[in-house]
């Protein structure tokens, strides 16, 4: 008899650990030929709330790290991804997220993007902020600060590059993240959780929930401890659900529209203007006359 595969159940990634969903639900994940290849957690509102709690608890310390240190940690995450290139590519391909060649290209682009944001950590503040020449004897400057806890809603495709493109700017700036993975192709996000767990990123900085987007969106949108949401390529009604959540606590909501080529375009994905939606500008005044 042929050896039986050990079917893996991929779990959530919350606060640096891999809990099963508290709901006990799972989703069978099939390959393109319809064969079950793994199970994945069908995350619930409670899981999402736990993730937000972890992200909130981790945020101040993460933001308080030196920008250089955050940059090194993001680079370490990229290094760990590099070691899992084949696993990522297979995770994208197996559920039909891309052809084998396109999946490899997506993995490479995702790693490069994370490296890019590793480099932005100690630079974007100089591009987005600055000194303001006010009229009068005052020294006045503006600096970007992290918004806080950022909800990320990854697009279905590209499952990995989409996720990294949205998470990268947020953690680069000192935010912590609760990400809802691609519903169609959740495996790459689950593998990314394993990358986070084995790199130096502190617990709670990145949290990943898998499951059904429609169930989770409203809870993310209405959560008062979520300070901003970054999403891409949502259907109009789903974007409206997120924006309606602004009325709860004035969370900042940015829903980007990117076509397949845009995701690979550095101008669209890697510019400091991708960081701007998840930072707050703080302006500080001080008299300069004695």
């Amino acid at each position, binding site marked *: 008899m042929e050896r039986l595969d050990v079917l893996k159940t991929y779990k959530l990634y919350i606060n640096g650990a891999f809990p099963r969903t508290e709901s006990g639900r799972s989703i069978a994940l099939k390959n393109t030929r319809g064969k079950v290849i793994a199970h994945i957690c069908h995350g619930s509102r409670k899981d999402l709330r736990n993730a937000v709690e972890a992200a909130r608890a981790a945020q101040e310390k993460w933001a308080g790290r030196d920008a250089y240190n955050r940059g090194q940690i993001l680079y370490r995450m990229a290094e760990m991804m590099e070691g899992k290139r084949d696993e990522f590519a297979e995770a994208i391909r197996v559920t039909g997220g891309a052809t084998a060649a396109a999946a490899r290209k997506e993995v490479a682009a995702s790693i490069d993007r994370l490296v890019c944001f590793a480099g932005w950590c100690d630079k974007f503040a100089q591009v987005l902020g600055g000194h303001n020449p006010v009229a009068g004897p005052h020294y006045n400057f503006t600096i970007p600060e992290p918004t806080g806890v950022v909800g990320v809603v990854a697009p279905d495709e590209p499952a990995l590059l989409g996720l990294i493109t949205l998470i990268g700017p947020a953690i680069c700036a000192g935010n912590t993240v609760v990400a809802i993975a691609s519903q169609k192709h959740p495996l790459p996000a689950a593998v990314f959780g394993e990358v986070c767990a084995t790199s130096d990123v502190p617990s709670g900085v990145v949290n990943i929930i898998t499951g059904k987007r429609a169930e989770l969106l409203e809870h993310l949108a209405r959560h008062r401890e979520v300070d901003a949401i970054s999403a891409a390529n949502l259907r109009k009604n789903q974007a*409206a659900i997120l924006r309606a959540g602004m*009325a709860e606590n004035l969370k900042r909501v940015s829903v980007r529209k990117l076509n397949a080529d845009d995701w690979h375009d550095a101008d669209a994905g890697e510019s400091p203007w991708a960081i701007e939606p998840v930072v707050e500008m*703080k302006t500080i*005044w001080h*008299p300069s006359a004695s």
Partner: protein
Amino acid sequence: MIEENSGLHAEAAGTEWSYAPAPESLKVEIAEKYGLFINGRFVAPKSHKYFPTINPASEETLSQIAEAGGRDVEAAVAAAKAAQPAWARLKPTERAKFLFRIARRIQERTNELAVLETMDNGKPIAESRNVDLPLVAQHFFYHAGWCDKLKYAFPGRDPKPLGVCGQIIPWNFPLLMMAWKLAPALACGNTCVIKPAETTSLTALRLAEIFREIDLPPGVVNIVTGAGATGQMIVRHKAVNKIAFTGSTEVGKQIAAACADTDKRLTLELGGKSPHIIFENAALDQAIEGAITGIYFNQGHVCCAGSRLLVQESILDEVVSRLRERIKSLRMGDPLDKNTDVGAINSAEQLATVRYYIESGLEEGASIINSSDEPLPERGYWCRPCFFTDVQPSQLIAREEIFGPVLAVMSFRTPEEAISKANNTPYGLAAGIWTDKGSKMFEMAKRLKAGVVWCNGYNLFDPASPFGGYKESGFGREGGLQGLSAYVRM
């Protein structure tokens, strides 16, 4: 010592050191009624409705203002939409010249605009002439210069105008808020439909005259006067590409909800309950002045007013005693008098709100110190500047935005406690810090969740300096390079 001496001297002379009235003598013309400013012309409202605008210091009716209805808003948006492509195509250096001209004419008509602002709003003439108007002119001048430099403002980007901007502004700084909204929008090649607050339309309509004087192309700015219903029509209009609102957090949330299923861009500059922190090593004379202007400037009708004074415990008694002295010297009265420090509350409605909070403070057990016991004028809307001591952070006066001359004084022991008290609010607009120790100041400035932090100063504004809030004080910035991004597509 000096104070004592001067007191003796005054007694010896047998007189009090009081000021003679010094009313502003410039008379401004006000029409009996005003239409809407649409497509470069004043037109009667298709709604056929008008409402009175009054002088809050005398309750006298100044004029009748048009109330824009659905068809009026429609016409204004259509005019803005029609004018936008040509405005955006103008050579940027030429577009700039229109804004420079506006700035110049505002400077030249400052006295008239300041008097009108004071009559319609109730703020002291010293403030409208020396603070509001110079900032209004400077705001247009600053943004004029951006018109031809936008491509350098955003590295790697090619900024484009958004289209038609719907802008809704409050009554506390009528002209200044108008400048904050119009100048960046116009500089970036957008056209505007703007609604002043219903109690303060007069200076907006005066600015429309300036737009005509300087030949601003018709439709580039359209002014629709009216109340909340008119504002809602702008927010809901499908041809409006961007909404910029300054006002209460409550209305801001309603606007966010109303725009949820649209692609409208949105910036909101909302309420605050800003902490003003005095450390024991502060330069106390200056800190007291800062605390006073922080809350009593513009009758406390300031979204970033320093309405929670947090004083280090070791100096609490001294600070309270000095505040008690200082508040007595504030002169409340005729806003057109050049010596007036505190003018009239803008409306009967706002006066009722402020009184409600003062009552709640007394009921909840806080102690009040008023500026004086003199009787209030018989006509007009007046509220004595006051502050509360014995305030608990859980009390309404310590939590909610009052938007009046009411200060809540509380204490703290350590910087850590100051931070936690200061940040314990859903708001995050501004904060003040008084200390002579640089490292403490920067640590506080870093950890305060506020969009503007004034160190050893308060209520400072400049067009080059971005203004706007964290958390429920809204999002987006106004002023500076960062303020431009709210008016471009990149």
